[in-house]
C-alpha cells in the first residue's frame, strides 16, 4: 500500500464529486431534509425527536453513502477503469482506502451540516456529548461506504446495485431496535440482530441520548462498528480481481 497512490485516488474521487455538484447537494440535503421532516413529524410529542433523532442521524448517512459508493465502484468495474488501474502498480488497498478517505471526508461535511441543523434549529437534545453523535454519524457513513464497496462486487449492473440497498440495509433497519427494542424481538431475530452492524450503530446513539457520561456499552458499540468497517473494507479489497474470466 502506498500513501501517495491512496491520496491520489481520494483526490480523484473528490474531483469527480466536484464535477457533479448535484450529487454533492443531494448528499448533504437529503439527510438534512429528512431529519427536518422527522423533527416536524415528532413536534410536540415529548422527547420523541430526542429519542429517534440521534438514531436516524446515524442511519440516513449510512444509507446514502452505501448507495453512492456501490454505484461509484460498479462504474469503475464496468467502465474498465478498475481493470486498467489493476494493470498498473496500484495496490488493492490503495483503491479501497482512496475511496474510504474521499467518502469519509464527504461524510464529515455531511455529518457536520446535518447534526448542526439537528442540534440547532431542529432542537434535538441528547444527554451525552453532541460531538460524539457527530463522530458516530461519520463512522456510520464510513460503514455505509465500506459495505457499498464490497457489495458492489455482487452486482453486474447499476439496476442490481441499487437493489442491494433494500436487500442489505432494510433488514438491518427492521432489526436494529428502532421499530421494536432488540431485547423484545423473537429469540432468533434477537440473535441475528447481534450479527448486524447497524444494531451497534443505533445502540451507540441510544447510549448517547440516554446517558450523560460515556458508557462501556457505547465504547463497545463504537469498537464493533469500527471492526465491521475495517472488515468490510478488507472484504472490499479482496473482491478486486486483477484477473477475470
Amino acid at each position, binding site marked *: 500500500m502506498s500513501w*501517495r*497512490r491512496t491520496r*491520489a*485516488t481520494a*483526490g*480523484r474521487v473528490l*474531483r*469527480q464529486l466536484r*464535477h*457533479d455538484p448535484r450529487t454533492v447537494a443531494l448528499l448533504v440535503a437529503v439527510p438534512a431534509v429528512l431529519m427536518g421532516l422527522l423533527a416536524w413529524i415528532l413536534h410536540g410529542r415529548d422527547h420523541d425527536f430526542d429519542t429517534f433523532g440521534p438514531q436516524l442521524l446515524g442511519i440516513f448517512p449510512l444509507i446514502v453513502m452505501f448507495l453512492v459508493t456501490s454505484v461509484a465502484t460498479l462504474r469503475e468495474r464496468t*467502465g*474498465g*477503469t478498475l*481493470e*486498467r*488501474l*489493476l*494493470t*498498473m*502498480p*496500484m495496490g488493492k488497498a490503495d483503491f479501497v482506502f482512496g475511496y474510504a478517505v474521499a467518502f469519509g471526508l464527504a461524510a464529515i461535511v455531511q455529518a457536520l451540516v446535518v447534526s448542526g441543523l439537528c442540534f440547532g434549529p431542529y432542537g434535538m437534545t441528547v444527554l451525552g456529548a453532541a460531538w460524539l453523535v457527530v463522530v458516530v454519524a461519520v463512522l456510520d457513513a464510513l460503514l455505509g461506504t465500506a459495505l457499498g464497496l464490497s457489495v458492489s462486487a455482487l452486482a453486474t449492473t447499476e439496476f442490481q446495485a441499487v437493489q442491494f440497498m433494500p436487500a442489505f440495509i432494510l433488514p438491518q433497519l427492521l432489526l436494529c431496535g428502532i421499530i421494536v427494542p432488540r431485547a423484545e424481538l423473537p429469540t432468533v431475530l434477537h440473535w441475528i440482530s447481534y450479527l448486524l452492524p447497524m444494531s451497534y450503530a443505533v445502540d451507540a446513539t441510544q447510549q448517547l441520548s440516554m446517558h450523560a457520561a460515556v458508557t462501556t456499552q457505547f465504547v463497545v458499540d463504537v469498537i464493533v462498528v469500527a471492526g465491521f468497517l475495517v472488515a468490510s473494507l478488507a472484504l472490499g479489497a479482496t473482491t478486486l480481481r*486483477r*484477473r*477475470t*474470466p
Partner: protein
Amino acid sequence: MTSRTPKLATPAICVEHLTVVRGRIRAVDDVSFELDAGTLVGLLGPSGCGKTTLMRSLVGTQVVSSGTVTLLGEPAGSSGLRDRVGYVTQVPSVYGDLTVRENLSYFAVILGSSSDAVERVLADVDLGHHAGTIVGRLSGGERARVSLATALLGSPSLLVLDEPTVGLDPLLRRSLWALFRQLAASGTTLLVSSHVMDEADRCERLLLMRDGQVLADTTPEGLLSSTATEDFESAFVALIEGDAPKSGGGILGDDEEGQ
C-alpha cells in the same frame, strides 16, 4: 521519449500453447508465437476472433486455461511488469466525469511517471487544446486518444493497443501510426490490433487471427507474396480458403484490385 533497450536475447513477448476458454467457446485456441523487442506488430482479424482475449491474456487480466505467456522475461501479470506494460482497451477506460488533464495527472501519479509526462502525452495524441475539457463531452475518437495517452504516460517497454485507430479520421490515424513507428524505433514493442485489414501495411510484422487461432505469423510483404494477392483483404480471404485466388477485392468495396 525515453528508450529502454531490452536485451536482444529476451523476446518482448513469448506465448506458448495459450488456450483460453470463455463459456463454451475456445476464444484463444493453442496459440504460440514470439515477438522481438522494438517491433511494431499488427494483430489482425475479424471482430470476435479472439484478439481482445489474447491481448487481455498478455497483460494479465484474463484467466487463462492453459499455456504460458512471458513478457520481457517475466510471467504475464506479475507485479514487476505493471509499470513496463501499457494496455489500451477497445472501449476507452478513462473517467468520463473528469477533464483530460485530471485523468492523465491521476494515472501519472499511479504510474509514478515524471511531472512532464502529462504534457508530453497530450502532445503525442494531439489533445493539448482539449486538456481542460471533461472527457465525457469529447467525441468517441478523442476519448480513445485520452485512453491511449494514459498508456503512454509511463513510457512502457511494451504497449498492447486494442483497436486504437478505429473511428479516427484518416489524418489522425496516419499521425498515430507515425507515433507507433517512432515508439518502435526507440525500442518499444507494440502489439496493435485492428479488424481493418488495410492497416496491415503499416506494421512490420503481422499476426492474423481467426476463430481463436493464429492463421499466419508473417510480414506484410510475406503475406502478399505467399498468397499471391495485391491487397490485404484478399490475402486474408485467401488464407482462410487455403488457396490463393487472384480474384481479390470481392469483399472490400473500396479497393480497385481484381480482374
